[in-house]
């Protein structure tokens, strides 16, 4: 099912410009004019996490651009469980560049910035080398900017803020980047996988695949490309199956949510199908939680990380996530204060929409999902007990464990 990752094996490193052109042909530059409409028709949604429709985003920039827009290819993959953005940049840099050049032509931009996480060394090297291979075509239109470490540095207003002023913290919106971004110009901030997917749509692809990152309790963890109509069971099977019985899956990473495995196992991962059930594909992270692992403990680790990654600009995020982190740690350690569960339940509903960026929204969304999926575990932990340990029979992966 590989389209984005078709071609030489990922272990072979970055595909050269020559090899890329041999497989895909020249850049379909003439396609740029009709590409926004085709992206809208393809229903391609952004793969950075927020899930905004790509075509609509491009049109919003194009409507304001006057040829002076900026394309900011977002390759700052701060999500701890996601590896797919650095993988596509490191292995298929020319597909990402194709997408960015087509985006620039389609929206009317004369400046392309590849914003690449400082810790993604292979990806940055591949992007720099690939841009040098195409220097004659690009004529100085494109450059690489190293994104600082940190979860929030990849948020779109933070990326623009860093490029404009060296400060990787989100800014108050509006104006959003598509209105006023890099250098005050309308700016298309688009995830690198989304750009690679757009480059395939320009060549007739239907955007029916997506990159995912699998982790925990699966036999072959790592980045894969899946057909979006595949079920979670099929995806797990393609990764060698589950290694242990599994109770839940973290869908979409730390900005996503926990889903009970039985709710998702036999269902397709297509964004529309997930949305109908109140879930989100997000950045394509699928991390399994084993039956004998404790969701309260796993969630406490995540909330601790997210609290530590607050940009510390907005009170509700700084103090709210800090308090949630402390209570989650007490609950996980089975030393909860009398009202900890009640309080995190209330705080989980109070923080959304009350930061300059969506950091508190994402963190409390994850917390609320945990409070639902692990309700019995939280109740037990509030009473100082943990009910995990013995796997229940009949869960997906139970057979694998019996055999192993």
């Amino acid at each position, binding site marked *: 099912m590989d389209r984005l990752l078709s071609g030489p094996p990922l272990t072979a490193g970055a595909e050269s410009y020559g090899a890329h052109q041999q497989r895909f042909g020249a850049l379909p530059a003439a396609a740029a004019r009709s590409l926004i409409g085709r992206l809208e028709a393809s229903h391609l949604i952004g793969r950075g996490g927020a899930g905004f429709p790509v075509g609509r985003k491009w049109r919003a920039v194009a409507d304001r651009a006057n040829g002076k827009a900026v394309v900011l290819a977002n390759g700052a993959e701060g999500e701890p469980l996601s590896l797919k953005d650095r993988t596509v940049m490191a292995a298929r840099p020319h597909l990402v560049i194709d997408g960015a050049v087509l985006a620039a032509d389609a929206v009317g931009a004369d400046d392309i910035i590849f914003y690449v996480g400082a810790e993604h060394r292979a990806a940055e090297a591949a992007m720099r080398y690939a841009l040098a291979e195409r220097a004659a075509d690009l004529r100085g239109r494109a450059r690489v900017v190293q994104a600082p470490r940190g979860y929030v540095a990849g948020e779109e207003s933070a990326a623009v803020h860093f490029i404009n002023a060296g400060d990787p913290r989100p800014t108050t919106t509006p104006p959003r980047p598509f209105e006023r971004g890099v250098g005050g110009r309308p700016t298309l901030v688009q995830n690198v996988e989304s750009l690679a997917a757009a480059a395939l749509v320009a060549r007739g692809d239907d955007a029916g695949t997506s990159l995912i990152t699998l982790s925990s309790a699966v036999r072959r963890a790592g980045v894969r490309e899946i057909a979006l109509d595949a079920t979670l069971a099929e995806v797990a099977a393609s990764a060698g199956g589950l290694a242990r019985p599994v109770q839940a899956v973290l869908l979409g990473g730390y900005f996503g949510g926990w889903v009970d495995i039985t709710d998702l196992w036999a269902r397709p991962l297509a964004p529309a199908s997930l949305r109908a059930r109140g879930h989100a594909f997000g950045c394509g992270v699928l991390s399994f939680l084993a039956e004998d692992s404790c969701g309260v403990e796993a969630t406490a680790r995540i909330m601790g990380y997210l609290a530590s990654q607050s940009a510390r*600009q907005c*009170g*509700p995020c700084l*103090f709210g996530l800090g308090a949630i982190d402390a209570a989650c740690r007490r609950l996980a350690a089975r030393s909860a204060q009398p009202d900890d569960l009640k309080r995190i339940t209330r705080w989980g509903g*109070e923080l959304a929409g*009350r*930061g300059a960026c969506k950091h508190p929204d994402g963190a409390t969304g994850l917390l609320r999902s945990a409070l639902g999926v692990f309700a019995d575990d939280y109740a037990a932990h509030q009473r100082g007990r943990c009910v995990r340990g013995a796997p229940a029979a009949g869960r997906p992966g139970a057979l694998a464990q019996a055999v192993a």
Partner: protein
Amino acid sequence: MREQLVVDRIRCDGHGLCAELLPEVIALDDWGYPIIRAGSIAPSLLEHARQAVDACPVLALKLALVTAM
């Protein structure tokens, strides 16, 4: 012309004057930061809302026209 209260969350320091002046619309969370009830301001409360905006010591509170997104 319907208006709603908007908080600049980066500027807001949680002084809490707004909630004292307009408790019908603004509550404070456990750390003193405002929680604004969703929706536009009732005409009978508009004058109080303007006072709350003017009272904010860091100019973090604004009245903005309700726009369809």
